[in-house]
């Protein structure tokens, strides 16, 4: 069964550095999402993406964050200047089409900002 994949599985970075988290969606999926989960807290929505543009974003998704699908396969989340509070698990999710379809989650990337 096809799965959403994410790289890297763990990223350690210094505060102020840029990081790019990558997601490879399931091939026929059209809707893409990023969520994050700070340790001990709930999974929170960051941004949704469809047809090469942002559909919706949360308050968390400020100017430090950006998403793109540069090559038609990878779906990336960039954090320009990381802060300590960006340390979290970042999950990519993808959905085929239609409101009735399930979101399938990747295994997550653990980001640690020192």
């Amino acid at each position, binding site marked *: 069964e096809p799965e959403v994949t994410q790289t890297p599985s763990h990223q350690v970075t210094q505060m102020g550095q840029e990081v790019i988290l990558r997601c490879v969606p399931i091939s026929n999926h059209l809707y893409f999402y990023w*969520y994050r989960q700070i340790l001990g807290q*709930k999974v929170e*929505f960051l941004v*949704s993406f469809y047809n090469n543009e942002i559909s919706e974003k949360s308050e968390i998704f400020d100017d430090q964050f950006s998403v793109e699908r540069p090559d038609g396969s990878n779906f990336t989340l960039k954090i320009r200047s990381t802060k300590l509070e960006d340390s979290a698990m970042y999950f990519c999710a993808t959905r085929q089409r239609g*409101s*009735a379809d*399930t979101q399938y*989650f990747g*295994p997550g990337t653990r980001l640690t900002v020192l």
Partner: protein
Amino acid sequence: AQRVTQPEKLLSVFKGAPVELKCNYSYSGSPELFWYVQYSRQRLQLLLRHISRESIKGFTADLNKGETSFHLKKPFAQEEDSAMYYCALSRNSGNTPLVFGKGTRLSVIA
């Protein structure tokens, strides 16, 4: 704004005992409700959704709009049910994100 509440962080039950994981939601519209499960070292995966009205791995959940609840139930817990369970809601209007509860860790004791 939408909100999902799972009042229990941890629920421990003995093997063979009934399980009920509580979920309450707050949303003024007509939501779609889900239960996701995360087994140890695995990804979040959909367990069931209210529109399907099906039983997965012996689990069922009924949407109660009057009580704004979507509790997850299983009559006889098994050790392999031990996992994190997340209740989630989406606005039933197309490409909308999931709003998650904090999750309940279910521990089934042999």
